[in-house]
C-alpha cells in the first residue's frame, strides 16, 4: 500500500495569483527513495512542505485535493501528528540549529526530548544516528562553531534520530563538498533499505542516479516526468526545459549524433558512460 498518497493536489500561497502546485498526483510505496528534481521555483520546496504537513498547518493559503502521508490526512489532523510520522529537513542549515542547545549531542536529542523519549533510549538513538551520518566526532562541539557542511549533517541527523516513517528532505546536501554529499546520500540510502520512505528534492543528478529508486521532475508546479532515474534523467525533455543534467548524459547525446555512442539508452553515471563509450574507441586504444 502506498504510504504517500496525493490526489489532485493544488496549492496557492497566501497573496499569490498562480498556484505553486498544480494538480499533483503522487503515490509512493513504503521504503522507496524518491528524488525530486526541477529548476528553482518549480515547486520542490512547496511539495516538501505539503508532504511534511507544514502546508496547510503552518503556511496558510488554499490547498485542495487529498494529501495523505503515513496514514494521516491533512485537514483531519494536527501538526503534532505529522511531526511524529513525517520528518522534514531543509536547505539552510544555520536556521535549523535550534539555538536551545550548547552541544551537537544535545542538539540532536532536542527532538527526542520534545516527544518524550526516555533518557536511556534517547542516548542510544542519538549515538546511533550520529554514527550513521558520520558526525560522532562532533558530539561535544557547539552547533554554532561548525562549518555549513557540518551543520547540514547535524540538521539531517536531528531529524533522522526521530525515526519518522517518511523522511522529507529539501536539498540536504547544498553546502556539502562531493565527499560529504556521497556520504549523506549513502546514509539516506541505508535508511531507505531499513524501510524508511525518503522523498528528497535535490539538484545533484549524478548522485541521484546512483542512489535513488525513482525520480520525479517538477516544472512550474506540475509533474513533468516520473520514472526510474535512467528514464527521467536521460529524457530529452529535461534538456529542452532547462533542467540540470549529468555531463555524461549530455556528452553521450552529442556523441550519438556523431555516431560515437551506439547504445539505445543514454548514461547517467560514470560507470554507464565508461561502459558505453568503450566500444567506440579503436581496439588498440582500448587497452591503454
Amino acid at each position, binding site marked *: 500500500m502506498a504510504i504517500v498518497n496525493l490526489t489532485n493536489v493544488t496549492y496557492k500561497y497566501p497573496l499569490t495569483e498562480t498556484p505553486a502546485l498544480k494538480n499533483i498526483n503522487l503515490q509512493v510505496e513504503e521504503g522507496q527513495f524518491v528524488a525530486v528534481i526541477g529548476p528553482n521555483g518549480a515547486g520542490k520546496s512547496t511539495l516538501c512542505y505539503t508532504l*511534511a504537513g*507544514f502546508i496547510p498547518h*503552518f503556511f496558510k493559503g488554499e490547498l485542495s485535493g487529498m494529501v495523505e502521508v503515513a496514514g494521516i490526512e491533512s485537514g483531519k489532523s494536527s*501538526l*503534532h501528528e505529522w*511531526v*511524529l510520522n513525517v*520528518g*522534514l*529537513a*531543509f536547505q*539552510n542549515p*544555520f*536556521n*535549523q*540549529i*535550534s*539555538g*536551545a*542547545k*550548547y552541544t551537537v*549531542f*544535545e542538539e540532536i*536529542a*532536542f*527532538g*527526542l*526530548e*520534545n*516527544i*518524550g*523519549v*526516555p*533518557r536511556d533510549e*534517547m*542516548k542510544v538513538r*542519538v549515538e546511533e544516528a550520529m554514527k550513521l551520518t558520520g558526525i560522532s566526532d562532533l558530539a561535544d562541539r*557547539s552547533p*554554532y*562553531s561548525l562549518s555549513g557542511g557540518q551543520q547540514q549533517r547535524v*540538521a539531517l541527523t*536531528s*531529524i533522522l534520530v*526521530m525515526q519518522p516513517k517518511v523522511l522529507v528532505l529539501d536539498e540536504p546536501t547544498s553546502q556539502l563538498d562531493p565527499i560529504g554529499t556521497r556520504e549523506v546520500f549513502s546514509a539516506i540510502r541505508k535508511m531507505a533499505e531499513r524501510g524508511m520512505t525518503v522523498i528528497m528534492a535535490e539538484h545533484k543528478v549524478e548522485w541521484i542516479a546512483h542512489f535513488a529508486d525513482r525520480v520525479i521532475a517538477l516544472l512550474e508546479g506540475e509533474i513533468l516526468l516520473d520514472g526510474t532515474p535512467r528514464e527521467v534523467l536521460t529524457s530529452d525533455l529535461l534538456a529542452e526545459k532547462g533542467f540540470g543534467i549529468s555531463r555524461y548524459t549530455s556528452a553521450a547525446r552529442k556523441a550519438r549524433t556523431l555516431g560515437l555512442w551506439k547504445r539505445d539508452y543514454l548514461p547517467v553515471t560514470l560507470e554507464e558512460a565508461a561502459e558505453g563509450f568503450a566500444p567506440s574507441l579503436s581496439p588498440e586504444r582500448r587497452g591503454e
Partner: protein
Amino acid sequence: MNDRLSFYRKKNSPIHALNPFTKLMLALALIIYGLSGDGLWTATIMVGLVLLPLALVAKLLREYIGVAVRLILPTAGFMFVMQSIFIPGGTTEIFRLGFISVELETVQRSYLIASRIFLFISAFVLLLLTTHPSELMSDLTRRGLPPQFAYVIISTLQIIPQMQAKAQTIIAAQRSRGLDTESSFFKRVGLLVPLAGPLVFGSLVEVEERAIAIEARGFTSTRPKTFLRDIPDTPTDKVIRWALVIFILLSLAARIWQS
C-alpha cells in the same frame, strides 16, 4: 564562540553538584535578605561572608572576583559616585567642590543602593558560573516553566553572537561596494539603512525557517517532555531549599515587624 555569553565554568565542586533550582533559591534568598534590611553594611557583609566563601567552595573565586571587578564594580561604582554627587538631601556636609556639596547621608544612601546592586548581580553571576544554562532551563521547565519561555532565553543568548557575526559580514559586503564607514557622523547616520536593512530582513526569513525547524522537531508536541540531562535533586537539595524558604519568610517577617 557561543561561550562568550555563557558564564558557566565546569568544575567538580559541591556547589556545582547542587540542583539549579536550589542555587536559584539561594540567590533569591540572599537578594531578599539584602534588600529587606536597612543596615548600611548588610549587602556588603552578604557578599563578603556568603558569596565569596561560596565562590571559594565552587573553586571559582578567581573567576568570580574577575567578573565582579570587570563587570559589576564599574556599574555599581559609577552609580555610587553619580548619586553621591548629584542627589541632594543630606545635612551633614563632608566637603564642597564649587557648587557641588557632598553630604554624609547621601553618600550612605548611595552606598546602600550600590552595594545592593552589587549583591543582586553577583548572586546571579555565581549562579551562572556554577550552573550550565541548559541545566538551569531544563530544570525550570521540568518544574513548570513554559518551554517557550526557556527557549526564548537560551536561544537569545546564543543568537546574539551570531547576529554580531552577521552584522560584520554585512558591513564587509557594503564596504566592498564602496561604502565609506570611516566618515563623519552625519554620513554615518546615512549608513544605517544599508547595514540594518539586510540584518532585519534576513532575521525575518530566519525566524520563519527556525519556527519550522523546531516545529519539525516536535517543540510544541503535547506529549510530556523528557530530558537528556539527568539533573540531580538530592534530599540535601530539598533540605537546603526548605531552610532557604524559612530564611526568606523570617527575613520578610522581620522587615514587616520592624516597620
